[in-house]
């Protein structure tokens, strides 16, 4: 049977929308990439070209030599890795207890933990700052990453996942004399790899992108992360770019900060999607 004209029209329309949305989504990223490889003269050229006519690496050279860009990247990576490892450890331990072990006050504790879902770090930066100032940890990576360990979403996702694991697995192990720690380590964790992976990715990305708190506690390149470095030195309202920003170096910095995240995203995409769906839809 031949498709009817209205069906054909509908399909054409849907494809037009699909292509349009895709182009709008990637155009700013392509424009960033294009600008990063243009010399200053070509950037101001009118009409603009999408493909650089005299491609150059001078913008990257400028960014990498004038700023401690590598150091910011390393700080970001370290903070994100340590934060992710700590969150996985602390959250999986606590979530297992909340999901499976019976103890006095467990309901109340869990309710208190969940209540903090509505309290973002934005509204606690003042007391947090005073806390880290009191122990003289301002301008250290520890200050940047430690608050991320008090994560609520991870507890929520993992508890939900643990609860859905059939009890028979644990009971068999318990009869064989396994302790709760052995059950957590040998049974619950291996069975929960997808959930752990999702928590890891959510934590890593939110730490990697974290801005306001690191902005408050980093004063120097020793603890400055990529988002903070870019925000402070390449933004419109501040920093080295001055009143007439040179967009070549700015876009080179933006590209350098973005490429690793996009590569990781493309490789781990299924986990990203599942992680977001899990944090959103309660497993």
């Amino acid at each position, binding site marked *: 049977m031949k498709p009817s004209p209205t069906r054909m029209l509908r399909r054409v329309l849907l494809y037009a929308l699909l292509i349009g949305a895709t182009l709008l989504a990637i155009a700013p990223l392509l424009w960033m990439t294009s600008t990063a490889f243009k010399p200053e003269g070509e950037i101001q050229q009118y009409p603009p070209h999408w493909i650089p006519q005299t491609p150059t690496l001078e913008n990257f050279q400028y960014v990498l030599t004038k700023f401690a860009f590598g150091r910011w990247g390393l700080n970001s990576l370290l903070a994100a890795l340590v934060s992710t490892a700590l969150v996985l450890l602390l959250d999986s331990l606590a979530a297992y207890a909340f999901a499976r072990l019976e103890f006095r006050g467990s309901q109340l504790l869990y309710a208190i933990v969940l209540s*903090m879902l509505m309290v973002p770090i934005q*509204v606690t930066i003042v007391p947090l700052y005073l806390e880290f100032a009191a122990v003289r940890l301002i301008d250290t990576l520890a200050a940047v990453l430690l608050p991320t360990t008090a994560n609520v979403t991870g507890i929520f996702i993992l508890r939900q996942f643990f609860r859905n694991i059939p009890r028979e697995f644990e009971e068999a192990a318990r009869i064989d004399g396994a302790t709760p720690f052995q059950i957590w380590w040998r049974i619950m964790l291996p069975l929960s790899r997808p959930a752990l992976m999702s928590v890891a990715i959510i934590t890593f990305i939110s730490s990697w992108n974290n801005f*306001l708190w690191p*902005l408050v506690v980093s004063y120097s390149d020793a603890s400055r992360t990529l988002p903070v470095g870019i925000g402070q030195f390449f933004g419109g309202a501040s920093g080295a770019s001055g009143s007439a920003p040179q967009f070549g170096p700015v876009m080179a910095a933006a590209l350098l900060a973005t490429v690793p995240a996009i590569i990781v995203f493309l490789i781990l995409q299924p986990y990203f999607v599942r992680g977001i769906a899990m944090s959103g839809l309660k497993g």
Partner: protein
Amino acid sequence: MTPSRKKSRGTLTPYLFVLPYLIAFTLFRFGPAIAGFLISLTNWNILGTPSIVGLKNYQLLLSDPQFRISLINTAYFMLLTAPPLVLLGLLLALLVDQQLHGRVIARTAIFMPYVVMSTVVGVIWLWVFNKESGILNYYLSLVGIRPIAWLTNTDTAMPGVSIATLWWTVGFNMIIFLAGLQDVPQELEDAARVDGANELAVFRHVTLPLLAPATFVVVMLTLINTFQVFDQIYVMTGGGPSLATLTIIQYLYNQAFESHVLGYGSAVAYIALAVLVALALIQRRVLPEGEA
């Protein structure tokens, strides 16, 4: 093993499991959330010894014109971003859920901006919106629109940062809706079609009700996140021009970390928190949570 021995061992172990997390939680989340309120009752300054001033900070806030501007601007930003974020998120999810070639590529592309860090989003759009050489004004000039000073004009600055925000986060909502759509049984939609319902009726009476849990989550996260906007605005306009994009978190940051009035800043934070809680409560009333 006797039952009693097993039980006595079982009483301490669970606490060992939760203890490490609870220490972090208390030090970095719960404690600060409580301490924030106490600090808001003082005139804490970076220098000098703080003393308790009761609710004076809150009283001052009531008559603080900049605070009022920041509240109005935040509401304006939410109005400009939240409805399109939810609606476009849903429409895009429906679009990439169709049996079309290249839908996986489209889905990946639309979500991609979300993995770009907020400050990079800010600098990218600073350049896109540039008045003289920005790509947006170039394309607008092709259809006869004169160059717009997007981020340096008080009328267009907020729409500008809103467009950037929409581009950055709409893919996130799309993914949640998409996960919700995958839970909608195909048979139900087909049954409605067999009964003669048109596509719109199927969507309205079958798909949309089954999407309630996803919608609830999307609306909640969108409200929370748009209310807390800071990063991209800090980079794109710094709250300007003439306070046109000064939002509440930016005002909190300015007070606490630029003017160094920590007690006053904490009061701003607590009002922000009260608004967040109120938003959540209102949403719970208005939107059905569905069963998730």
